[in-house]
Structure formats: structure tokens, C-alpha cells
């Protein structure tokens, strides 16, 4: 049995646009524009992409943005710190909902 994810499929991303090419074109324009340098450098944006890729656990994005980070002159120290930021924020997003649980418990409890 093969794997769900095939690294070669990342290179086939544009085939999604074989159906409703207008929507894929809009996505591509937006995606590429969002990574253009602006107030943030391309390097900063690529690192953000890497962090988000880990928060979402998208293997394609992880592959693509890891290569992007390396090609911006970053190395494992940069990448690992970004992964920790993504993981800590994601963990915190769960943890802060613990206040919800506490609120509920207080409402129900004598």
C-alpha cells in the first residue's frame, strides 16, 4: 500500500487548476503577491510560511518552505526556532480554552 502523500505531487499543484482555472489563477496571483517583499522582507515571509506550514501540518508546505528558508540563507537554528514558535502558539491556542472549561465548571458547580 502506498502513502497518502507523494512528494512528487507538490510539483503537480497547478493541476488543481484543470478544473475552474479562473479560481486557481486568482489563488496563484494572491499567493505569489503575498510573498513579495513589502514591509516584510521575503526572508521574513518565507519563515512565516514555514511556521504556518507546521501549525497546519501540511507536508507539501513544509517541504516547500524548508527549501525556501535554506535558499534565503537560513539553517536549522532558524527553522527549529520557527517550528517552536508555531508549536507553542498552537499549543497555547488549545491551552487558553482551558479558561472556557474553568468558566463552565464554575457555572455548574456549587
Amino acid at each position, binding site marked *: 500500500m502506498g502513502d497518502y502523500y507523494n512528494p512528487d505531487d507538490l510539483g503537480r499543484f497547478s493541476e488543481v487548476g484543470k478544473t475552474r482555472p479562473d479560481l486557481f489563477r486568482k489563488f496563484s496571483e494572491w499567493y505569489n503577491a503575498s510573498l513579495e517583499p513589502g514591509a516584510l522582507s521575503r*526572508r521574513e515571509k518565507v519563515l512565516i510560511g514555514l511556521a504556518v506550514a507546521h501549525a497546519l501540518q501540511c507536508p507539501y508546505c513544509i517541504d516547500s518552505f524548508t527549501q525556501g528558508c*535554506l*535558499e534565503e540563507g537560513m539553517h536549522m537554528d532558524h527553522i527549529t526556532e520557527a517550528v517552536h514558535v508555531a508549536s507553542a502558539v498552537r499549543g497555547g491556542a488549545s491551552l487558553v480554552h482551558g479558561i472556557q472549561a474553568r468558566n463552565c465548571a464554575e457555572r455548574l458547580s456549587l
Partner: protein
Amino acid sequence: MTFRDKLISIGEYPVIAKGIRVLQANLGFGCNMACRHCHIRGGPRAEQRMDRATARAVQKVLCEYDIPILDLTGGAPELNPCFRDLVTEARRSGKHVISRTNLTIFFDKGMHDLPEFYRNNSVEIIASLPHFTAGPADRVRGDGAFEKSIEALRILNSLGYGTGNDGAELHLVYNPPGAFLPPPQETLEQEYRQRLSSDFGISFHRLFTFTNMPLGRFRDFLSSTGNLEPYMKRLRDAFNPATLEHIMCRNLISVGWDGRLYCCDFNQAIGLAVQEDLPCHIDDFDLDSLASREIATGDHCYACTAGQGST
């Protein structure tokens, strides 16, 4: 798409030389290191070495023709017994000399006076330093290489190299430590300058970023790790036609360790000699026919023409 077909598709085939300003001589594949990205598989056991007759032929060509620059490479060019004579004779003839050094050679037996030799002859130094920290640098060049390189750079700085003095140009070369393209040169140069100064008190003139050639030991790495085709695709996708104007083969001719002529050292690595109807050995050198030659190309040329290009 092959590199040749790519050039044809954009109307840039063939690539024609625009004169010869640089005579690059590969003095042999012998080296005190065995770097993982080496396109010629240089190392301590390599036996290819330019002999004295061929070195004399190189000197003769420099004397006879108005080629302003001699560029010495290897392996470690300093290991060739003809190296110092080539430098001093070229300087005596008023030529500018470049030496592509690995820096660690300064600490080999019999090489401790190399820094002074370089300074006394105003040799321009282009030195490999894959990173400004030890981890990535040593992964490419071997354990301890970074520490020796830093010490070598300190010695060169103490002699005036990289500090703004005339005749003491010191440039560094970055190669990516893996199957990916280099970052923007200007951005990385700023980082190198800031970190080498703050961490080690070292200064230099320019940083050059080179894309790794899919040849030699680096190709072995690509093949054994399943990276070859993805890397070649990366290079093809990053093809930048604007780089064609200034690629180094436009005004450089390369002499192999055995005297054969190539359009660049990378072509030498794969035995891709100049076109058959041209002088093919340094003994038969003819500037007029070589200066406007059609440049021999192959798919490895995607590396020099990727992204910002390789300086």
C-alpha cells in the same frame, strides 16, 4: 529541456565568447581537503597535476598575448610545485593574479609562508568559506576546517588583506551546504560582514555566491540521496536569461592540468573540451580563434544561469 534546447528556444544559441581577459589554470586535483561539494573530486589521493612543461606553456601564452588576468585553481593550486613560479612570473609580466585558496592549506607543512608570499606578490585571494558558523561550514569541508579558515583569515587581515589596502583584495565564496540555491548575494554578504566582524574581528571585500554544480562529488551526493532530478528541475525552473550576458565563460579560457583547453573549469571536470575545430591544447594556443569561439555547453550550465547567476 536540455540547456542547448533552452538557449535555442529563447534565441540565445550558440553562446559566443567576447574575448579572453582571464586565463584560468587548473594546477591539479590534489588537495589537502575533500570537500563534499567539489566538482572535480579533489583530495589528498588525486594524482592529476600540471607538469612543469605545461606550466611553462601557460607562462608563454601569458607573455605572448594581452590577457590581463591569471586565475589559479585546483584542487589546492598551492600544492603544485610550479605554483609560486607561475605567480611571480605572471606578476613580473604585469599580469593580475587570482588564487582560489581553501585557506586551510596555510597550515600544511611547507605552506606557512603562503600568506606573506601572497601579500608580497599582491595576489587577489578568492577563498572558500561556506558559512560564517562552524556547523554548516564543516559539514561541507570537514571537521575543523572552519576554525582553520578563521585563523587563516585573521593572518591575511593582519597582512592588510580585506582591509581596503591596494593589492590586497580578499573575497569569500559561499556555496550552499546542500541541494538548494544560494540566497541573494547582497543580503548574505551583509550577514557575513556583520557576523565575521562581530564574532571574529575579520573583514573582507566581497562575498560571491556560487550555485553548486551537479558534477563530481556533489553529483554523487545528489544521486545517492535521490536529489539529482529535483535539483536539476530546481535549476531549470530558476533559469534566468539575464545571466547569459556576464557568465564567466564569455571572457575566460580554462587550461586543464594536462594542458587541454576548456571553456571553464566545470567543463574540464566532465572532459567537455573546446570545439574540435579550435586549438585544443595550451601548446597550440591562438587568441584570435579562441576569443570569439562558440562556448561548449551542457546541462550543468543551468547552475551558472540559475537565479542571480554565479559570479
